[in-house]
């Protein structure tokens, strides 16, 4: 189908974009890999699109005092192929490489993806494991939120009307940290049925730090704190991992759809968490 008529604006700088977004019926276009299909199906019919694609000041990857700052319109392919991201924050580059297909990765952007907040998107697992921050900006000023406060619910973020994502901030990883993102994908859409990101630091033969982020299993991505606690302090053997991942869905209401029932999804979360932890442990030194 063809989308309903809409106005289109492609501002050249951030200020102009923010003033256009003063119109409450305007919608941000940041790659369009989710929004355009929805418009073509006429599931979404915004009156005006504000395309961020020409705003150069939103497309960057910068290293800055122990963190990487990634501009909102940086594409998945730029993240996946960036030497800086690959060496300084390999988990994010790995997650980006798993998104959709090459065409989607060439067009889709990190800001667009997290603003959409699809519960099966790939980035959130890594962003939770990385304890990333999201920087937001509106006409009046800017604010910075931990990723756990940014993702509010299914398809719901802390973004206010008139506000856009400026950048995503992830830590520069210590070289000794081991990370891995493992995903069970739905073959038609490429979305995660479940996806698990793990970060591991070792010290004296024991696991000193663990971070586990999960996507696809419940309505919002989350950090599996109980799995993290169960692994820390152990030697990280196969048996330690098996015990730790048993409760990955504890206290959650797992998603169920035609691709995977709640019980199957939960079991797959355990399997993919086991893989992610095993690889992360083997990569940590």
């Amino acid at each position: 189908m063809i989308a309903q008529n809409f106005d289109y604006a492609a501002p050249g700088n951030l200020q102009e974009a923010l003033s256009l977004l003063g119109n409450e019926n305007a919608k941000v276009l940041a790659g369009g890999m989710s929004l355009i299909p929805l418009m073509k199906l006429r599931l979404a019919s915004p009156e005006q699109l504000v395309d961020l694609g020409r705003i150069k000041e939103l497309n960057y990857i910068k290293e800055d005092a122990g963190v990487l700052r990634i501009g909102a319109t940086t594409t998945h392919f730029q993240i996946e192929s960036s030497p800086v991201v690959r060496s300084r924050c390999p988990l994010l580059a790995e997650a980006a490489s798993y998104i959709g297909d090459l065409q989607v990765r060439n067009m889709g952007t990190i800001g667009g993806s997290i603003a959409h907040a699809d519960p099966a998107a790939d980035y959130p697992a890594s962003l939770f494991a990385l304890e990333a921050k999201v920087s937001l900006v509106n006409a009046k000023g800017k604010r910075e939120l931990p990723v756990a406060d940014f993702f509010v619910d299914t398809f719901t973020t802390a973004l206010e009307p008139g506000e856009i994502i400026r950048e995503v901030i992830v830590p520069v990883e210590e070289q000794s940290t081991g990370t891995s993102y493992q995903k069970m994908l739905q073959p038609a859409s490429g979305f995660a049925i479940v996806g698990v990101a793990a970060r591991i630091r070792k010290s004296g033969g024991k696991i000193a730090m663990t971070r586990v982020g999960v996507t696809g299993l419940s309505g919002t991505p989350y950090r599996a704190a109980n799995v993290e606690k169960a692994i820390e302090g152990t030697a990280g053997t196969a048996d330690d991992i098996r015990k730790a991942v048993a409760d990955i869905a504890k206290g959650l209401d797992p998603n169920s759809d035609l691709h995977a029932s709640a019980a199957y999804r939960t079991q797959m979360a355990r399997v993919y968490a086991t893989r992610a932890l095993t690889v992360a442990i083997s990569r940590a030194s």
Partner: protein
Amino acid sequence: MKINGSYSVPAPAQRAYTLLQDPVILAKCMPGTDHLDRVAENEYDMKMKVIIASMGGLFSGKVRLADQNPPDSFKLIVEGSGKIGFLKGEGLLNLMAQGETTEVKYEGDVQVGGTIASVGQRLLDTTAKMIIKKFFQKFAEAAKG
């Protein structure tokens, strides 16, 4: 699509039951709904504006209450349609008194049709859960004050 779950409401059973039958309270708790228009005994017209992930818009339909058995249970029948699809659902709500609070258990079956059902299967379950959660969060607030 089957839906079920339970929420704890900070009010005794009799009060929780009365509030759940009150069109003013229901309208306040249903996301994107301003008011319910009474068309017959226990039957209301509703207009709901929901936008999730930029999908949605205006839905219009009916809410009906049936099989009332105060303060233990009643049936809620909802029908609505909008540009992106329609839904028809029936749910049984069971209230269990637990002193000053009430456990509200719901169990129902919802049929969704139209474009959203043919292309959005993956989204229906999580979205339905979110809307129900929002309803009960607002309802818990309403029941408190």
